[in-house]
C-alpha cells in the first residue's frame, strides 16, 4: 500500500501549482480524485467522465462570479431600501425597467424607442468610426514604422494629439461637419486611431532583420512584403492597438452622444437623467458594460485567430 500512496502524493504535489493558476480552488479536489484513474488505467477516460470533467471546470469558472454578484446585489438592496435613499435598490430598478427589458424593440417614433435601437445606433457609429480608425491607423502606423523620416515628422505630432480628450474634439468637428452624426463618428475615429497607429508602428519597427533578409533573398515586391511579412509579423502589436482602440471608442461614444442628442445609448442615459428615471440609467449602464466587454472579447478573439502561430516562435 505504501507504493501507490507515495505515487499519489507525488502526483498531487507536482500538479498542484499548475492547477492553481489554471482553474480556481474547486478544481483541486477533483484533480486528486482523478489521479488514481489516470495512473491506474492507461486507457482513455469514458465519455461520461469527460463531460463531467468539463461541467465541473465550467462550474468552477461560473460559480464564483455568480456568488459575488449575488452578494453585491444583496448589499446594494440593503443599503438602498431605506426610505429617502437617493438611488433605487435592485428590486426597484427591475420593477421600473421591466418594460424596457422585456421589449427592447418598440419604436414610438422620435427618440422614444426600445433599448435595442439606441444600442444599435451607438454601435453603428462606433463601427464606422472604428473601421475608419483601423484602416487609417494601420496605414499610418506602417508608414511611421517603416520610414525614419515619416517617424521623425509625424511622431511628435501624434504624441501631442493623442493626449487631447475625445470630447474636446467634438465642438471642432461640429463646426466642421455641421451635423451630429459625422461629428460623433469623427470623435470615435480620432479617439481610437492613436493607439492603433502607435502600436502598429512599434510592431513594424520590431520586425526582425532576419525576416527582411528572407524577403530580400526571395525578392518579394513591396506589396508582397506588406501582406506576407509585415502584416503577420506585426499582427500581435496591431491587435494590441486595435483592442485598446475599441475600448476607447466605446468610452467616447456615450459621452459624445450625450452632447449631440438623437438616438443612441448616450443620449438615452442623459434623457433618463433629465426625466429623473434613475432606474433606466442603471439598466443602460449595465448594457453599456456588457457590450463594451463583448466588443473587447471580440477583438481579442479575432486577434487570437489571426496571430495564431505568430506570437510563439
Amino acid at each position, binding site marked *: 500500500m505504501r507504493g501507490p500512496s507515495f505515487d499519489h502524493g507525488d502526483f498531487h504535489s507536482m500538479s498542484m501549482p499548475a492547477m492553481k493558476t489554471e482553474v480556481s480552488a474547486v478544481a483541486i479536489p477533483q484533480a486528486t480524485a482523478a489521479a488514481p484513474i489516470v495512473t491506474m488505467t492507461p486507457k482513455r477516460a469514458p465519455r461520461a467522465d469527460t463531460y463531467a470533467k468539463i461541467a465541473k471546470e465550467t462550474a468552477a469558472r461560473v460559480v464564483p462570479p455568480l456568488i459575488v454578484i449575488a452578494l453585491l446585489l444583496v448589499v446594494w438592496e440593503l443599503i438602498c431600501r431605506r426610505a429617502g435613499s437617493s438611488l433605487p435598490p435592485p428590486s426597484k430598478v427591475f420593477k421600473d425597467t421591466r418594460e424596457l427589458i422585456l421589449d427592447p424593440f418598440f419604436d414610438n417614433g422620435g427618440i422614444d424607442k426600445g433599448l435595442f435601437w439606441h444600442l444599435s445606433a451607438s454601435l453603428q457609429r462606433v463601427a464606422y468610426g472604428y473601421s475608419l480608425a483601423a484602416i487609417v491607423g494601420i496605414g499610418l502606423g506602417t508608414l511611421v514604422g517603416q520610414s525614419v523620416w515619416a517617424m521623425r515628422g509625424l511622431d511628435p505630432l501624434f504624441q501631442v494629439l493623442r493626449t487631447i480628450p475625445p470630447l474636446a474634439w467634438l465642438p471642432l468637428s461640429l463646426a466642421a461637419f455641421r451635423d451630429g452624426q459625422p461629428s460623433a463618428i469623427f470623435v470615435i475615429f480620432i479617439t481610437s486611431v492613436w493607439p492603433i497607429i502607435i502600436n502598429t508602428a512599434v510592431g513594424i519597427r520590431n520586425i526582425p532583420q532576419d525576416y527582411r*533578409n*528572407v524577403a*530580400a*533573398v*526571395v525578392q518579394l515586391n513591396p506589396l508582397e512584403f506588406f501582406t506576407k511579412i509585415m502584416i503577420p*509579423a506585426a499582427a500581435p502589436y496591431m491587435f494590441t492597438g486595435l483592442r485598446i482602440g475599441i475600448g476607447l471608442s466605446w468610452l467616447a461614444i456615450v459621452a459624445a452622444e450625450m452632447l449631440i442628442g438623437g438616438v443612441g445609448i448616450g443620449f438615452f442615459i442623459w434623457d433618463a437623467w433629465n426625466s429623473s428615471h434613475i432606474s433606466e440609467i442603471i439598466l443602460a449602464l449595465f448594457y453599456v458594460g456588457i457590450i463594451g466587454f463583448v466588443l473587447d472579447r471580440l477583438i481579442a478573439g479575432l486577434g487570437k485567430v489571426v496571430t495564431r502561430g505568430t506570437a510563439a*516562435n
Partner: protein
Amino acid sequence: MQAYLKLDHIDKTFTRGSATTEVLKDINLTIEKGEYVSIIGHSGCGKSTLLNIVAGLTGATNGGVLLENREVNAPGPDRAVVFQNHSLLPWLTVYENVKLGVDKVFARTKSRTERDAWVMHNLSLVQMAHAKDKRPSEISGGMKQRVGIARALAMEPKVLLLDEPFGALDALTRAHLQDSVMALHQKLGNTILMITHDVDEAVLLSDRIVMMTNGPSARIGEVLEVPLARPRKRLELATNPGYLKCRQRVLEFLYERHSFVEAA
C-alpha cells in the same frame, strides 16, 4: 579555369557619425563551380559581413562580387542564404515557408502542381516531408535548420550561402546535419560558401578553407586546400593523417598566428 564566383578586391567600411571602421580589406577569392568553400575566423572578423556582401544584403564599399562574370549587388534567389537562426516565418507552415521562395522563383517556369511537387521534393531531400504541415514552433532546432536548407535549395541557387548554419545546434544534431549537407553536396553538386568558426566542421566539409585574420581591416590570411577524397566519413577521418594535418594547420593559424585579442 573560369571563375564561377569571384570576390573582387572587396573593402568594407562602416561609418557611424564621424567614426569609420574598416571591417574588410582587399578580399579576393575565386570559387569554382561545385566547390565547397568555408570561411573561418574569430568572431568579429567580418566573415558574416563578407557573406552578406556576397548575398547582396550589404553593399561593399569598394570592389564587388561577380557570379558567372556578371556583377551582383542586390539580394536574389541565385544566392540563397541559410541563416544562422533558421529565420523561418513562424506564421507559415514548413511547406509554406519553402513554397514562399518557390512561388517567386518559378512563377513563370513551373505550373502550380509542378511547384507543389518541387517543394515536396526538396522537403524530402532534407527528410522533412513528414512535417510539412507543422509550424516552426512545433519542430526542433535541427529540423528548423533542415527546412531552412530546403528553402534555400528549392530556389535552385547558383551559389548556396551558409551563415554558420549549425552554430545554434547541439553537438549531436550538428554532426547529423553536417552529414546531411555533405550528402546533399555530393548528390546535387551545389557550389557552397559557408561561414563557420568550427575547425572540425570546416575540415570535414570543405574543399578549401579560407582563414581570415582578425579585424579591424580583416583580410584573407591563408587558403588551405583539403585534399581528402569524397565521400568523407566522419569516423574514418578521425584518425586520417591528412585530416589531422589540415586540422593542425587551421588551428595553428587561428590560435598561434592570429589568436583572438579581446578588444580593450
